[in-house]
């Protein structure tokens, strides 16, 4: 269930740089990162974890119908999230809170969706092309592939202008790899050679079903059958997540076709707030993966590079502030107007929507009239 010989890694679980033949081509991409960029990796991982913990609490206290934790998957998300450029398009599943944050989504907008105020939560065009969450497993892989086909039709790959070249990155889980839509997306992506990176977060479980039920071969091998190069990375190593995605996205943007990355990681929390993982997985397994925690690992690396304790204290303080800010603003959220139910079903006027909206307004007004008459 853990790393294999094929697993690419730049940081050992102890937080030391790994210099190997396999990692050699990725190291230069890390060496280009500034101290500030490295600090930002840590900051987003820590702040998102604090948000995740706060959201879990808010759900338990009845403030959300459901919560979908991201704990444990921060490195896979933050590394790949920072590898995409602002003009790229990101198609998430529903657990990519760290990437949402990187692209400019307010954490409270994620809360609004899971609190039952909206099915979406943001306009992707205002959030650096971070699309809304998709709950039907695997569906977004086809939307991403179609979007990438559109970029190609626009002629926006390999233009020679790095500001114009664009690509798409799509996130999905190990369970999703069994969906027909993901296979169809790989077929279309290969056929049209789309500028696209398939980013699989293999967190070992699809609710209670282990990845071994989805696939008897390592999942990074799956795309090769479609003619798409695949690699496996240590998804708890933020540096390889960044470097591998950076390379794959650069290749996609420059017109070399689709790429596939399997990030081995682990869902430390429950599948959702409705789940009870003790029914299907062992304490030993959980402890094994907790020892590989992505935040501790990267913090050790930063300390090894001489980062002072003040930085870590500041980030922790910011995380606590963010969590309490999310709590405060969650409690202030109102209920959307009832008309919303009818207003956005179609873009153009529709008689049923108009009639039913009017009927409901009259019906509700009839109670006011009765009250007034008494």
């Amino acid at each position, binding site marked *: 269930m853990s790393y294999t010989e094929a697993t690419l890694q730049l940081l050992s679980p102890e937080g030391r740089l790994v210099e190997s033949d396999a990692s050699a081509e990725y190291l230069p991409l890390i060496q280009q990162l500034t101290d500030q960029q490295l600090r930002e990796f840590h900051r987003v991982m820590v702040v998102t974890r604090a948000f995740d913990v706060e959201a879990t609490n808010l759900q338990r206290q009845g403030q959300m119908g459901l919560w979908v934790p991201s704990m444990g998957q921060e490195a896979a998300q933050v590394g790949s999230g920072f590898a995409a450029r602002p003009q790229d398009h990101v198609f998430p599943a529903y657990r990519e809170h760290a990437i949402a944050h990187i692209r400019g989504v307010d954490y409270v907008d994620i809360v609004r969706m899971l609190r039952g105020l909206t099915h979406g939560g943001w306009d992707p065009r205002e959030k650096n092309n971070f699309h809304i969450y998709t709950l039907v497993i695997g569906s977004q892989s086809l939307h991403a592939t179609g979007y990438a086909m559109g970029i190609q039709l626009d002629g926006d790959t390999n233009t020679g202008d790095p500001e114009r070249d664009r690509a798409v990155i799509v996130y999905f889980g190990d369970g999703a790899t069994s969906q027909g*839509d993901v296979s169809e997306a790989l077929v279309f992506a290969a056929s049209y050679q789309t500028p696209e990176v398939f980013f699989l977060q293999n967190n070992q479980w699809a609710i209670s079903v282990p990845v071994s039920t989805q696939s008897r071969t390592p999942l990074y091998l799956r795309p090769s059958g479609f003619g798409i190069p695949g690699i496996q990375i240590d998804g708890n190593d933020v540096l390889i997540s960044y470097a591998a995605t950076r390379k794959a996205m650069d290749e996609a943007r420059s017109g070399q076709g689709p790429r596939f990355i399997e990030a081995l990681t682990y869902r430390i929390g429950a599948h959702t707030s409705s789940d009870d993982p003790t029914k299907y997985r062992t304490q030993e397994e959980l402890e094994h993966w907790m020892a590989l925690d992505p935040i501790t690992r990267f913090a050790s690396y930063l300390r090894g590079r001489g980062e002072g304790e003040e930085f870590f204290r500041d980030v922790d303080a910011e995380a606590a502030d963010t969590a309490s800010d999310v709590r405060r603003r969650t409690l202030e959220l109102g209920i959307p107007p009832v008309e919303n139910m009818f207003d956005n079903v179609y873009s153009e006027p529709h008689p049923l929507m108009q009639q039913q909206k009017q009927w409901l307004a009259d019906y509700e007004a009839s109670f006011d009239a009765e009250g007034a008459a008494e």
Partner: protein
Amino acid sequence: MSELQSMPMAKALNAGLRKALADDPKVLLMGEDIGPLGGVFRVTEGLQAEFGKQRVMDTPLAESGIVGTAIGLALAGYRPVCEIQFDGFIYPGFDQITSQLAKLTNRHDGTITMPVVIRVPYGGHIGAVEHHQESPEAYFAHTAGLRSVSPSTPHDAYWMIQEAIASNDPVMFFEPKSRYWPKGDVDLSESGRPLHSSRVVREGTEVTLLGHGAMLSVLLQAAEIAAAEGTSIEVIDLRSISPIDYDPILASVRKTGRLVLAQEAPGFVSVGSEIAATVTEKAFYSLEAPVIRVAGFDTPFPPAKLETVYLPDADRVLDAVDRALAY
């Protein structure tokens, strides 16, 4: 200035698609075998040669893939028109149509549009094997966020496909495949009509007949026979399955007092059921008889040698007319 030309529906659709492709560089066609072959019904014949492989795409053989990538292309600013090869092969794409295409505008709180057309050759009368003769329109009419239409003449096919492509909402475009070949006059200058409008195609006073797609030729035939027997029948072409344009229907029922609905699709939980209920509610005091439905049986579409029994014909329609008149 009208430019009347006689042509079959398949050619009229081809002309409509060609005009849409020529007028708007964002319009794309996608589907199985729609390129060099021109589609199994030749509706897209010559279009790939004219507009190129990038705009008229032979896709991999995967309906969910076709609809799902069309959604992505629509998000990227394109206006894809997808061809589903036959009615019975739409189901692998059903999830993308109903859970994604139909709901994405709503899920985005109205901040995006989904200008995607799904063209579906549908219905019987062609003696084909299983999965090639079905009428699945009720599934889609039942889904909020979709619009559904079905032309019955070459002329309507010509302008309706263009209006469907111009719509910013997803449109299910049901093409009565048995009507692909009979010719009719098409006015190539037609444009700008409202997509969701029903139409009185024959005026009469005693009974109203209502249907869509290939049913129209059956209804007109029934009206002709009835006229010879002295019964005056009004025939309405529904044209839009969702939303339904009720005004002409209610006006007609208020005049005749009798409504017979005909459709190829099974009658249980169908478009006809919906119209029957609504007309009863809205025109109750004008009705001289209950609304009567003539439909395909609630069985799977039968093997071809039995299709003439399954599909409503003029006799079954006239039997219903007699029953309506007997009240």
